């Protein structure tokens, strides 16, 4: 039987690695240079965090961190599919960033109390940088929610499209009951999910985006939301899709977007195994 700590470390590391890779694709393409630098730095932070986690995993697993990051088959990656979604619209990236970083913050805070010493120490370092990610994500959340109408509309739609996949960040882990009973997980993924949902639900509610969480049924009608530019937007304008369950990533079942990402991310490693920078 494999070490139950591996399923936790693969989930955490792969989320950071794949999201970091996706964010790095924005480098040079962000709408303005200052934000380009900020988002690129966040991408580098995520990849650095993946490396810290894979260093710990390497001791358990036996493979070196590069082999773990780049030498696995697509079906062996355990990231949530939210992290592999393509960069279509900047609003969608910022929506995923906001949903993800709150989720990451909830689980990292919980893991500060883990009985797994090496992980606990890595988490303390990661939280220092994740604080900036959260500030950045929240700042964009408030600004895009505040309008003008096109920004608010696109951001609301992006949040609605991403929310189901974001919930799957809390898909149960293999051997989770063992992880909980050994105190490696001080709290389980279901509790993390509930804490995250309460947190983002409150923020969505504050900006009149509560319909993002209403995955079923008709849009609420008649509610008019004034934006910073004084334009009035009816919430009816926000297109809502029923979120797909978004689950499967923790079992290695990915969306069609994973393989192209994997091919590019691992191209050099596959062509020249063991190459060094």
């Amino acid at each position: 039987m494999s070490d139950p700590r591996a399923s936790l470390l693969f989930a955490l590391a792969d989320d950071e690695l794949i999201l970091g890779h996706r964010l790095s694709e924005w480098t040079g393409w962000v709408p303005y240079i200052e934000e380009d630098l900020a988002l690129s730095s966040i991408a580098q932070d995520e990849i650095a965090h993946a490396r810290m986690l894979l260093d710990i995993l390497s001791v358990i697993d036996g493979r070196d961190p590069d082999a773990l990051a780049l030498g696995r088959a697509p079906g062996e990656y355990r990231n949530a599919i939210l992290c592999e979604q393509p960069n279509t619209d900047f609003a969608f990236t910022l929506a995923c960033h906001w949903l993800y970083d709150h989720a990451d913050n909830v689980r990292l805070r919980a893991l500060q109390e883990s009985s797994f010493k090496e992980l606990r120490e890595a988490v303390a370092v990661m939280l220092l940088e994740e604080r900036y990610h959260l500030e950045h994500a929240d700042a964009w959340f408030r600004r895009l929610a505040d309008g003008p109408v096109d920004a608010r509309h696109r951001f609301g739609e992006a949040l609605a499209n991403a929310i189901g996949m974001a919930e799957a960040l809390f898909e149960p882990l293999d051997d989770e009951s063992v992880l909980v009973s050994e105190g490696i997980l001080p709290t389980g993924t279901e509790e993390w999910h509930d804490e995250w949902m309460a947190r983002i639900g409150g923020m969505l509610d504050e900006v009149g985006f509560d319909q993002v969480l209403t995955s079923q049924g008709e849009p609420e009608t008649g509610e008019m939301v004034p934006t910073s530019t004084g334009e009035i937007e009816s919430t009816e304008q926000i297109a809502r899709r029923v979120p797909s369950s978004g689950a499967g990533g923790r079992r290695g079942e990915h969306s069609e977007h994973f393989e192209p990402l994997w091919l590019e991310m691992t191209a050099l490693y596959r062509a020249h195994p063991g190459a060094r920078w």
Partner: protein
Amino acid sequence: MDVYEVFQRRTHDDPLVHAGSIKAQDLEMALILARETHFRHGEGEECWVVKREDLHAVPNPETMGGVTDRSYRRQDGYVGVGAKLKRVTEEMKKLGKSITRE
């Protein structure tokens, strides 16, 4: 977007110096973006921003410091004062006088 000027202190004991400029929507975004634009390599321990329009230039800078000779106001105008004082003291002594410094 507005232009913000970014200042840094290398350590808390160093003076504030200009690090560069950034564009941002508002003050909060300026504070968030300044650090990744100008402080990615450990340039400083403090980062300050101010909206460019809140910086005000002194008018007529060409007359700053004066346009006539006022070298006596400069520190180097006092070079050799000790030697001068010594010389004058000795000359006075020859005349039977002394300089008292109260």
